[in-house]
């Protein structure tokens, strides 16, 4: 990863089992400028290894499913989407 001058502060919403794993429905995390969804997931997997045991973990950015290479910014609405089970 490239070196950036200062990190971003991203607010991460967490739902369902990820809310329980993170022990809260919102987490503020510092990420390097230009960090992607994949970078966020790597950081979270390191901090919360239980996340790696989920069947899937998607990230939503501004209420849309985001691809792994999507870049994040501080003003994004970011959310963790563990396997859904509505209906």
């Amino acid at each position: 990863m490239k070196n950036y001058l200062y990190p971003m502060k991203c607010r991460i919403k967490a739902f369902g089992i990820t809310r329980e794993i993170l022990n809260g429905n919102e987490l503020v995390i510092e990420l390097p400028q230009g960090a992607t969804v994949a970078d966020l997931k790597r950081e979270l997997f390191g901090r919360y290894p239980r996340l790696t045991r989920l069947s899937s973990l998607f990230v939503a950015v501004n209420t849309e499913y985001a691809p792994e290479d999507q870049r994040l910014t501080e003003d994004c609405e970011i959310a963790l989407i563990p396997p859904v089970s509505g209906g």
Partner: protein
Amino acid sequence: MIKITEKPIDIQKVIDATSSLGAGAINVFVGTVRNTAHGKNVVWLEYEAYEGMAVAEIRKIMDEAHSRWPLLGAAVCHRVGTLKPGEASIAIAVSAPHRKESFEACEFILNQIKTKVPIWKKEIFEDGEEWISAHPTTSGSYN
């Protein structure tokens, strides 16, 4: 109509939201809380939604259904919070000129909701609890 609510679902209202004088058929799906899962008694369920995104995803699913079938109306109401066995967690209604498309579109909307919409269900048993489908070992949703 797309609604996420903590209150009991009024199924007739969901149906009425799709009514059209051109409709000959309305298909309705009601998902209800079963009293058993994985051979254990379910005491209650907790449903949780990422509401803004859930509404947006349901809207996309409805748009897709409208593009695939000549529908006259579609409505989805999903309940969140604490639900007891027998209560309705979701009601979907689809109106169309003819019956076949009403069945197909309603089942399509339901299946898409189950795979895409950010709503989560936790089953509370007498001796524990479990987020459904969260892990590869769990057997998934039951309606």
